[in-house]
Each structure stands twice: as C-alpha cells, then as structure tokens.
C-alpha cells in the first residue's frame, strides 16, 4: 500500500495589500505519496509558489494569512506549529529549492562552508566527512573542479552555477520531502538534464517525495508521476502524467499544452496563446475563474463554480464540460496532431 507523506486539505492563503485582500490560494487539495513526484504547473501568479511556501510555513504573517485548511505531514498538521518546532522540520524533513537562488545563499560565506553547515546540522559526522560529502554534492550537481569552487563566494558563480549550489544545499540534509520551485528554469538544457537524472537517482535510493514546480511541460513529461494544474489559486485538473498529456480534460490544460512551440512549428504561424489576462485575485470572478478566457465556456460557467469531476480512479478535472449533460467537446486538433507525431517518433526510436 502506498503511504501518504503529505496531505494538503482545503488550503486557503490570503494577503492583505493596499489594493485589497488577495486570495492567492483558494482551497488547494492534494496528497503526495512516499517516493513520488508531483509536478505543479500553471499560469504565472496562479499560486504555485505560495502553496509551496505555505507547506514550508514561509508565508510572512502579516501580510499573509493562513485563512483555512490543513497541511498534514506524516499525519501531523504543520499550520499550528510554532516557529521553533517548524525550524526542526524545515531543512531536515522538508527541504526547498527556491525559485530565486540569491535569497537562499549567504553572499558573505564561502559556498562550501554553506553546504557543510547543513550537513553538520542534520547528520552526525565529523568535519572532514562533511567536507568530503559537500565536495561530492558539488560534483553531483555538475560544478567543475569542486575542490577549487568549494572555497569561492556566491558572486564568483554564474546564475546557473548558483542555482546548482542551492540544489546541493537542499540535498545535503537528505530530506523526506523536497520542494523544488522552478529549480532548473535558470539552467541550460544540458545541465538541466543532468540535474533531473540526479534527482531521479536520489529519489530511487532514498524514496524521497518531490514536489516539482515548473513551467516547462517537457520537464514535467520527464520527471512527474502525477501532475496538478493550477489556475487562479485552485487546482483545476490532476492526474497521472499520462492522463494529463494524453487525455487532458480542462480547457486551461488544453491551452497550456497548445501554447508550447515545438521544433516543427513554422515561424510564420502564430503560437497559440490563451487570450486575455489572468483574473484579479482581490476579486475572483463568479463561477469558473477561467470562463472569461475560455472559448468553450457554457452559460453556467459564469454563474456557478464547477466541482471536481471524476474522469477515472486517478484523474479529476474541475470543468462543467465534464457534466453528463454538457456538449461533448474534443481535445483541440493541434494537440492531437502533435501527440500522434510524437507517438510515431517514439515508435521509430524503438526500432
């Protein structure tokens, strides 16, 4: 039986701002099992980072407010924990790779020392062992000449190299849950491929659970077991990686899949882009938040918020299109065509 490591229930996070109360996360729910990778994708501003920061209890209060919900880690709710109790969990059981590497590094301390400190804090090892382990980690994340780089300061590294140091620090504690917020966005694709392999290896060895936030659907296809698609502070579709890529149900998911160019796009045709702007979260729209930008929207979408409809044991989507009386709408043609083309390519690479 799979064991749930993390259960997020009806999570609601608000921010008080000059312009009003921003409802950044509006009832997010998901379960993460041991050894599993959940990818969270979705529009910029949809609440991915706020959700993951909330799990780490890193939402500043004020202006942030944990308005509702539970975050059960190994069955225990993290929301009521004190800062002191939380700091024991943070970095030890749960580690995070931040979207912005500079906030995670101390500019005045040598890189190697920063990694060693984490190891010494969480593991019973000698200084010498910690140093060896730190150098090994630097090597694993693809830093050339790690012995030399060990003694340098963060500003002596390029953007992508700093990000790899942050990854090394997160791995140093050997966490049960690793939250990676756009960990590879700043990296070139060759280093990215190497980091993804490394994360998968570590996961296999230690049964680490991973929450992977990314915009890159190619990366999702590579790493995810399951995928949650977020829009306007809510999860609007979730399922296995195959459910989401081969049988997507939510029009927003169609929009996401359709806007990726691939190597076959001719540059004189326009990319498909979801029209309009993201909703104002100080005043979320009535009904389905995606309706104003959805060309398949039904009358009810402007009135009533859809529930999560069950597509299969593993697959759910929050759209009225799944109602039994709704008109049947097929996955848009360009997405289907691309699926077929990739399928042929995969078969070709077989032989």
């Amino acid at each position, binding site marked *: 039986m799979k064991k749930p490591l993390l259960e997020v229930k009806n999570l609601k996070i608000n*921010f008080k*701002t*000059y*312009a009003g109360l921003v409802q950044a996360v509006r009832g997010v729910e998901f379960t993460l099992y041991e050894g599993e990778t959940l990818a969270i994708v979705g*529009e*910029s*501003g*949809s609440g991915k*980072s706020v959700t993951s920061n909330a799990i780490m209890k890193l939402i500043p209060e004020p202006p942030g407010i944990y308005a509702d919900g539970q975050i059960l880690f190994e069955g225990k709710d993290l929301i009521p924990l004190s800062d002191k109790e939380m700091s024991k969990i943070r970095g030890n059981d749960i580690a995070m790779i931040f*979207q912005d590497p*500079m906030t995670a590094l101390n500019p005045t301390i040598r890189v190697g020392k920063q990694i060693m400190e984490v190891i010494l804090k969480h593991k019973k090892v000698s200084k010498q062992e910690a140093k060896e382990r730190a150098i090994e980690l630097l090597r694993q994340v693809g830093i050339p000449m790690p012995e030399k780089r060990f003694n340098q300061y963060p500003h002596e590294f*390029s*953007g*992508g*190299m700093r990000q790899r140091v942050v990854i090394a620090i997160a791995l140093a504690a050997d966490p049960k849950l690793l939250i990676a917020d*756009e960990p590879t*966005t*700043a*990296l*070139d*694709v*060759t*280093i*990215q*491929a190497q980091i993804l392999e490394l994360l998968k290896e570590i996961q296999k060895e230690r049964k680490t659970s991973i929450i992977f936030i990314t*915009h*890159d*659907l*190619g*990366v*999702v*296809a*590579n790493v*995810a077991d399951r995928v949650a698609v977020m829009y306007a502070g809510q999860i609007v579709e979730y399922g296995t*990686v*195959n459910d989401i*890529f081969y049988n997507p149900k939510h029009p927003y998911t169609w*929009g*996401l899949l359709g*806007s*990726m*160019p691939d*190597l076959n*796009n001719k*540059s004189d045709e*326009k*990319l*498909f*882009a*979801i029209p309009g*702007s*993201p909703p*104002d979260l*100080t005043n979320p729209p009535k009904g389905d938040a995606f309706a104003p930008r959805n060309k398949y929207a039904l009358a009810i979408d402007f009135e009533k918020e859809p529930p999560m409809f069950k597509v299969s044991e593993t697959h759910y989507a929050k759209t009225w299109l799944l109602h039994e009386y709704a008109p049947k709408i097929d996955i848009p043609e360009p997405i289907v065509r*691309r699926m077929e083309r*990739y*399928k042929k390519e*995969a078969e070709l*690479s*077989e032989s």
Partner: protein
Amino acid sequence: MNHKLLEVKNLTQYFGSPSNPIKAVDGISFHIFEGETLGLVGESGSGKSTTGRSIIGLYNMTDGEVIFKGKNVHKIKSKKEQKQLKREMQMIFQDPYASLNPRMTAGEIISEAFDIHGLYKNKKERQERIVSLLEAVGLNREHMTRYPHEFSGGQRQRIGIARALSLNPSFIIADEPISALDVSIQAQVVNLLKELQEERNLTYLFIAHDLSMVKYISDRIAVMYRGKIVELGDAEEIYHHPIHPYTKSLLSAVPLPDPILERKRKRIPYVQEETSDFASMHEPLPNHFVYGTDEQLNKWLKQAQL
C-alpha cells in the same frame, strides 16, 4: 532587410586580474540585420549575458568594437547622441528580482523612462500609456499601484518587458525574457515581440535557454560555449543540420512535452575536445559558420554526412 543594424567585431570581455582573467567573452564577431532576430543560446556561464551587457555599454570592453547604425558606440562623444543611443537600445534583464526598484510601484517603474524624457502630452495620456503597456504584457490596470514584492516571479518579468518597450526602442537585447514565464504567457509575449517587430521594424538579440522558443522566434541562431561562438547559421539549418558536437548535445537535451517519448530519448553527452590555437571560424556551407580546427571540421562534416 540585409542592412546591418549592429556589428560586433572581436568582442572580448575579461574579468578579474589581468594575469589570470576569467575570459567571459573571448573574441566573438557577428552582425544583426535590421528587422531580424538573432537567437543566442549556450550553456550556463558561456558568456551570453556578458555579451548583451557589453553591447549596451555596461562594461568597459577589454577589446573589440560595437558598431550600431554605422557608428562606433564607444567613440560617441556628444551627450545628445549618447542619450539618443540609450533610447534606441534597450535591454530586458535576466533577473526580474534584481532589476526592479522595490520602492516603486509597477506604474512608476514602467513610466520612469518616459517621465525622465518628458515624453507625454498630459496626465491622462501618460496614464493610458501605462495601462496599454501593462495590457500588452498580459497584466491589467489593477496592477499599476502594486509593488514588485506583491507580484509573482513571472509577473515581475512582464513589468521589465513593459519598461523596455516604453521608449519605443529600435533594438532590444532580451536576456532570457521568458524563462520565468509559464508557457501560455511565453506564447503571448513571443507573439507580442513578433508583432511589435513587424509593426515597428524592431531588431532583437534574443538570449534564451529554451531552444524550441528560440528556434521559433529567431531568423538565425548563434551557439556559445565558453566565451566563443561555436556555431552560427539559419535557425532551421542549425536545428536540422547541426555540425558542432556541442550544438548536437544541446539539441538532444531539449525536453519534449510527451512522457513516453521523453523517457525514451537518448541524450548525447558533450566532451570538450582539446582546444587549439589553430581553431578558427569556418564556413563549410553558405552562411553556416562553425568554430574548430581544420581536422575537427573535416571529422564533424563526415559525421554530419555533409
């Protein structure tokens, strides 16, 4: 077309001590035609941002020349011409966190440049311009009074793009302008950049990691590795007939949005070959340039079956 807007000759940018310098950019040459997009890709730390920053004059170049509209940029003395140049060349920065003033609202950040230059008729027109720039990058009126920390990562990047567009420049250096954006906004921004390019005959140097987007937006692509351009040519050509082994490795690493195919794919690792003083730029095919020694080129061309 076919009129060179920008010419870069032997651009060299070293950092650190002269005796043991970091050769961030090591003597690269290229040109960009008016109305064209040149994509610049390459591994992290290869010198892409430094190239962009040297062109707009953020550093004292170690060596080389930058010629914009026929004028040597670093030799312009008159204040008026320098000001004009600053308006015409704009940069969208890679790091949306560091490049926005935390004490200014989004509206103030976007209007700062045209406030300084006094480029508006009245309050109302100024306001309308801010809103239209916000909307052009997928934000809205409500965002005008918010501060940078109240935005998500991707939203901040869009403010940077709106700011770069605010002075109607003719040449834009976009340093990873879309890496922090989700794909649907990426598509919006890329469509927008292309539309603006057609309307205003803009020229772009587009730096990015995402090769599928770079191929889509670029007319030509330059591939950088350790401070050098190792391959340069037509976008389609670079994609379908790469010659340099680093380019091949890079292409094989682009993740594809298909779980079955993606998990089956073989990456081609790149092992750097001995560098040699005899290496130079070759033109094995018309307008397709590759950096290496004569022997390397012969070998690579055989491998590419050309």
